[in-house]
């Protein structure tokens, strides 16, 4: 129950982050509009919806997946949830995105180095932590949502 409560708070944390980036993006879009007749046109609505999707893809999908996966893992102690099942789903989803948002790429840019540093330290780590570290190390530059998922999971595991 304690894990569940803490993870419920994390839902709010990532939604809050996405909300802020989305609001900033809308502000920037509106500021850069060449014409401003006071109306939100159909094109504006399409653009705002695109910005919303980018915020969700950058800050919610992988994160929510990690939060829920951690709750399930904590209950069932089935490490395949974190190592295989959900990452495979995330990969499939990421594969459907034609152009990855800059925010998603930028936030994962340091993860390879962080993971390699922890791996090189060769401290005593559980098997699941080692697997997630390798996941981050291998995927941070190509599968950004996958890396975000693994990095969030590592945080929840106290790393």
């Amino acid at each position, binding site marked *: 129950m304690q894990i569940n409560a803490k993870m419920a*708070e994390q839902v709010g*944390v990532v*939604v*809050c*982050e996405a909300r802020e980036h989305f609001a900033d993006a809308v502000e920037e879009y509106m500021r850069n509009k060449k014409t401003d007749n006071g109306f939100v046109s159909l094109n504006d609505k399409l653009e705002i919806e695109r910005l919303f999707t980018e915020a969700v893809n950058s800050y919610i999908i992988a994160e929510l997946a990690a939060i829920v996966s951690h709750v399930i893992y904590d209950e069932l102690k089935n490490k395949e949830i974190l190592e295989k099942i959900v990452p495979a789903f995330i990969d499939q989803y990421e594969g459907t995105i034609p152009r990855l948002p800059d925010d998603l790429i930028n936030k994962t840019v*340091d993860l390879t180095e*962080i993971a390699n540093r922890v791996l090189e330290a060769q401290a005593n780590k559980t098997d699941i932590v080692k697997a997630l570290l390798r996941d981050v190390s291998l995927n941070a530059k190509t599968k950004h949502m996958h890396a975000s998922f693994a990095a*969030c999971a590592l*945080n929840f595991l106290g*790393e």
Partner: protein
Amino acid sequence: MANKWSRDLAIKDDALHPCTYPGSWEWWYLDADFENGYTIAGTFHYGSPRPPANSDARFIEIAIYDPAGNRRMTRKRYPIDKCSFSTEICDVVIGPNFMKSVNGLEKYHMYMSEGDQGFDLTYERLVTGYVTPGQAQPADCYPPNTPPSWIVIMTKAKVTGTLTFDGKTMKVSGVGYHDHNLESAPYGTKEGGIGGTAYGSVGLNLFWSKLYAGDWTINWVCNRTTRRGGFAQSNRKSEVNVIVYKGNEIVAHTNNGYAIGSDTTTAGTGPGVEWPRHVKVVFDEPGLIEGTMELNNVRCIEFMDLHSRFKPFQKWYTETYIGHSAYFRHRFDYDANLTIIGQPVKYKGPFWMEHHKYGKGY
């Protein structure tokens, strides 16, 4: 002292509150500003107020700031068998350091000494204290999921004794303050906090200080939620607690107002952690206290990077989704333009504040 804003304080309020909840903690805090320009702040800790929870931690912190801006900070942990705490009266001993009531809540002996830094001081209460109704009762166990208890024992005290800075001992006199805080879980591990990965409620900047101005004393803690503040309530209100004294009596109280920082700069390495050069404090309780205090922070005298305890992915997660939490003390010049119970209160002068930064932005 009892009135609609605070119950009477009891001697037991400043004793240890026995609590069996894992993660519970208490600290006893004191500070003083001396006529020679030195400032001190010290804490006696029973349990860790920051994650990870550790109710067995016993440690002290001594901070001394000289007039030129030099800082000496000592933090030292002691084994449990070198510490003692009374459940009847303030009698706190951590290693060689102690805080003891000499005469009820009216007079205390405060002694802290580690290496070349320390002080030996007598606190005599000038202005009484405060406890929020409903918070911890005298020496009762405090239940979980209640607000942290803030028990102010001496809002203003006459302080005399000796101060030792870099081995040089000097006689000092000035004005001080003493409070006692306790909670059933470390900061940030309940109610809007972020579990084991950070420090406080997401998205808040909390400023705390006092205004000692003539016959008036204002003990204020103000914050303002940033855009990040509160995922459940996107328009979460400011959280404010302001207690106003005239002489030795509480004459006003409000939870309405805010403090907001601007003109930021950074402390620390790398991208650094933002802190504001200017803080505007607004009180908004018509008939009791209203008006503004403009605070120009002239020097950051304390910076604690609260991420230093985090592991690599905890740091990444917190930086990415929450922001960099830190603790500051800033010296400021203030310009207070207030109306308190219908009377104008206009003062200017120097003082300092405590600043808890829990997330991004201001």
